[in-house]
């Protein structure tokens, strides 16, 4: 399956009458798996999203206090950043407080992403995320059914299961400059779609919102 490249940013807003807090999803088109950029993309996605030490968590939840939670990564939430074959996205999913605007969230988000594209990560930041990604990979492979799944996907997509075994050491080869270059090339507004999902305003006479106290 191939898709035409995206050339302009798309933005949509949806309302949800049962939602209580708003959320934002930002998706960037990603390079094909096993292209030279893909591994740097996997690392970039985790640098931005993986855990409390991630760049977006630190910037959005902690420093600027414009988000409740940040999740995402390359091929998220479909699978890990290595197991895909057709077109996929790097998605950021951000739940934010009702008293914060979409634009405030996006401004903080863009500033983090642009900073990464301008400066790249430090070697120390890169070492930390590679340790985390290795531990995450081992945690996946530790479960026999997930190991079988990873091996079968590798054989299906590449004709060999070697990539499952080389992934932990391949990660260590990614350089700060590759991450910087990846962010510069792919994490740009023309390559993304943004969906803002907000609670529907309470209609008059609808009674108080549900929920026991």
């Amino acid at each position, binding site marked *: 399956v191939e898709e035409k490249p995206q050339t302009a940013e798309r933005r949509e807003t949806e309302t949800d009458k*049962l939602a*209580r807090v708003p959320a934002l999803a930002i998706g960037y088109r990603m390079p094909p798996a096993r292209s030279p950029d893909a591994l740097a993309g996997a690392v970039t996605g985790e640098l931005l999203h993986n855990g409390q030490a991630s760049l977006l968590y630190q910037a959005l939840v*902690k420093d600027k206090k414009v988000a409740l939670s940040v999740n995402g990564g390359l091929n998220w939430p479909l699978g*890990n950043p290595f197991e895909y074959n057709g077109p996929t996205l790097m998605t950021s999913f951000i739940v934010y407080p*009702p008293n914060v605007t979409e634009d405030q969230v996006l401004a903080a988000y863009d500033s983090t992403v642009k900073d990464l594209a301008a400066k790249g990560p430090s070697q120390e930041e890169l070492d930390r995320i590679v340790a*985390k990604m290795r*531990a*995450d990979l081992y*945690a996946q492979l*530790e479960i026999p059914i997930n190991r079988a799944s990873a091996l079968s996907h590798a054989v299906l997509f590449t004709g060999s299961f070697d990539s499952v075994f080389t992934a932990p050491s391949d990660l260590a080869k990614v350089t700060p400059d590759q991450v910087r270059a990846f962010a510069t090339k792919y994490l740009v507004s023309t390559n993304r779609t943004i969906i803002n999902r907000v609670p529907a305003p309470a209609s008059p006479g609808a009674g108080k919102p549900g929920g026991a106290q």
Partner: protein
Amino acid sequence: VRFLKLVGIVMLFASCAFAQKQQTPLPKDLPPYGPEKPLEAPSVKIAKLDNGLTVWLVSKPGFPTLSYSVSVRGGLAADPSDRPGISELLSNTIDQGTKSRNAKKIAEDFQGAGGDLSANAEKDSIEVSTTVLAAKAEPAMAVLADILQNASFPDDEVALAKSNLADSLQQQEADPGFLASRAVANVLFGKNPYHVISPTKGSIAASTSADLRKIYAQRFRPDQAVFIAVGDFQNEKMLELVKSNFGAWKSPAESPIAETPRFTPDPPHAVFVVERPGSVQTTIEFAAPGPLRGDPDFESAVVANAIYGGTFGSRLTSNIREEKGYTYSPRTSVNTYRAAGALVSHADVRNAVTAATVNEITYELNRLVTTSPTPDELSQAKRFLVGIQAISLQSRASVARALAALWVKSLPPEEIGIYGKKVAATTADDVDSAAKKYFPASRAAIVAVGEASVVREALAPFGMPIQTAP
């Protein structure tokens, strides 16, 4: 989360195939099943430090990772009555600063070891855990030990955590499953502190850094804690590492918080409605008192539950999902805490079949009480339970979690092996006894979350009192 999802999907498919097989009789010449093969308990090295810290170590070579899990006694049920759920705020802030590390440094130190800290408030305990690269065993334990002994609960971090927790609570209150669980806990446990499953808007607003420091000092003490490690390490080296990181930890002079004494809930057989305006589905839960994990008939109740509603091939699932299509995935479970147990049935159904579903759940509960399992039902349930236990304990993290849950209940690690053997030995008579004791529908309170007028009208014909959930 991805892993759980995958296991869930695999189980669903496995059990779909299972359910379909039941409909088509198997060929007569197939050999019989072999005997169940219950999981052996992991070999646990047990030690106690001079300061009273209990240590359970499971050396498990293989992938170069290890899991640490530390639990302390006292969770949501031990929260002060004017601060219900503050344990959750404590879990969210315990890693937000120590005397020597700020929140960012703590997060980075864990990430550099390949981990992430997870802290969870349960009813009876708070569990702090992480899984890291085996090569980083030392730095990971150093930061974990720092959090457990020196957490400082900085004012600015607590203020942010309070604000985010209040928003998360608001988000959870959109979820009918959360609303049902909260109402069930209130109905089942009443005034007992076990009714607390989360903080309230008011308790979050009232909580301060000083409250958190006080509770932390009360509960985070070595004589009320267990340190568990599972993974790629040698026991002797790990024990030395534990001693050097936790040996100086001191328990305060005052006595530990009081335990919740064992109690048996006695909920009214009545309907409790949680209003959720605009809901197109009703979430139905039946909740009755159940056994404790250490009770002699715990495993019998678990097998009975597997036959009733706890598996895909169960009577309830066959009935309201496969035959009638009322719901996509009903589920029932035997939940155990240190001082009480609960048998809970759950189904999300479209509004129009609310009454019919309550009727079928009532019927299946009472059918279990009045109708012995067939040999096939019994053997399938036992086979499923023995198999799923082995599947659920494949990861280091899950073994550590299971051991922690046993310690919290004052049960030994051997329980992991005892469980499977007792399940495999369960007879139809055992199931009948457990069914009569725990499963009569009249023992259950019913919680219904949905459009209030729909629920009230639908359930009126059952003749049970209908009231707004507490």
